[in-house]
């Protein structure tokens, strides 16, 4: 039974919701998570304009790309990751630069760069990306493994798969197999993987700066998302080899899609939470009433919103 908290909004919640065009219950839910910081969060979301790029180190070095883009008039700032930059100034659209068309970088928020790092993929491992398109995280996995891992990417969307195919070709990556299918059906192939990335389809509260339609999410959508996420967690469990690693991530603040799903994975699927996993210098916030999982908030981490957890299937 999936229970979604749908609180009665306070007057302050209604005022904030009305001012910025949100469903009042969404504001009330966020207040439940972060208290009075909710106003800071909403204001940060309204102002968020940051742009990041991930250098495709299979084609070019970070130093060389930075120099190239700066010669074109772009201004870049370094991040905690040597191959990720923030773009502070663009004389023209980044996506129409020669460097982008040549596949030298991928435009990707810093919060989305984290999950493949947590997965710690190694060359020659078999890796499944369960909700892969348009391929930002999949191609990052390929890059980390220097093109030597065996990567299978699954997504149900025809349009997003077409984008993924274009991205894989543009970035010049030859170690990804792309399957257009419902991720829940992948078990039927009878193949097991060393690692699984499940960047789960979610309500997308964390990406409101990119998609304002997420401001008015309905209760029913939370219920259907949690159902799908749990189905995919079951698939991830089935498809992992014993001892295999799962990184579960979302781009939402919703505890039912985050911590409650991790609780589900631990209690119902008997997975082990790797609560001591290194999270680099990213400095995320702790989980909501749960240790060993992490959150990114726009007003704290100054990125899009996200959630991360690392789980292991027992031996």
């Amino acid at each position: 039974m999936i229970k979604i908290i749908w609180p009665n909004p306070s007057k302050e919640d209604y005022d904030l919701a009305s001012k910025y065009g949100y469903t009042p219950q969404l504001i009330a839910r966020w207040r439940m998570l972060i208290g009075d910081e909710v106003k800071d969060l909403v204001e940060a979301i309204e102002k968020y304009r940051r742009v990041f790029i991930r250098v495709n180190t299979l084609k070019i070095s970070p130093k060389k790309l930075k120099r190239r883009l700066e010669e074109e008039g772009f201004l870049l700032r370094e991040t905690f990751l040597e191959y990720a930059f923030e773009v502070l100034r663009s004389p023209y659209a980044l996506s129409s630069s020669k460097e982008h068309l040549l596949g030298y970088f991928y435009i990707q928020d810093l919060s989305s760069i984290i999950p493949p790092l947590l997965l710690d993929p190694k060359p020659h491992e078999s890796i499944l990306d369960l909700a892969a398109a348009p391929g930002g995280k999949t191609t990052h996995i390929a890059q980390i493994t220097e093109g030597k891992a065996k990567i299978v990417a699954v997504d149900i969307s025809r349009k997003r798969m077409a984008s993924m195919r274009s991205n894989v070709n543009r970035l010049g990556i030859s170690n990804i197999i792309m399957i257009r299918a419902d991720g829940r059906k992948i078990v039927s192939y009878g193949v097991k993987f060393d690692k699984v990335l499940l960047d789960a389809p979610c309500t997308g509260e964390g990406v409101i700066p990119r998609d304002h339609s997420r401001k008015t999410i309905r209760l029913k959508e939370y219920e259907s998302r949690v159902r799908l996420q749990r189905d995919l967690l079951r698939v991830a469990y089935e498809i992992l080899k014993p001892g295999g690693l799962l990184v579960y991530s979302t781009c939402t603040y919703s505890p039912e899609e985050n911590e409650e799903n991790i609780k589900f994975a631990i209690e119902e699927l008997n997975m082990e939470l790797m609560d001591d996993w290194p999270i680099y210098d990213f400095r995320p916030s702790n989980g909501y009433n749960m240790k060993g999982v992490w959150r990114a908030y726009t007003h704290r981490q100054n990125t899009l919103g996200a959630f991360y957890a690392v789980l292991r299937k027992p031996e």
Partner: protein
Amino acid sequence: MQSLENQSSKRIWRRPTKREGEIIISKLEYFGEDVPKKVLVGHDMYVLEIFRREVHLVKRELSKAIEVFKPYSAGITFGELKGRTFMLSLAGGYLVARYATRKRVMLDKEGSIKFIYGKDVEGPDIDDWDEDIEDNDVVIVLSDKGEFLGFGKAIVRNLRVIKVENIVDIGWYLRSEMNEI
């Protein structure tokens, strides 16, 4: 010839036939004798038959996965077989250009920008070219930095490449996304 048929979507994955392999190799050699060896090392080629014959280049370790999953796509879309010819894709062209020693035209900075906007280039746009280029040859077009921009058709007069007609360029990656919107 073993084919891996996915009944529901009529996608057939198979290895190239001997004749198809010869056509592909011949096209790669057109750009340099060593190109096939250098481009194909560590990879297997697969033909995906849908309503056309796409050639895919996949890391060898993933060959078994193609047989199991019969995927939507695999590795790099290297090009397309049409009748008795093989046309390289943009992704294929990028790989080939790294090792090509023949049939290349290099543009200057302004020419490079024009070309990736889908335009033909001529005169001062063209900086240099390989001497083996003949009139109406398909050529690899390179930027002022020697990077792959696309394919063109060379117009040669008095041993000079005076014009390159745009066949396909890397600007397609952006234009195709905009068309989807």
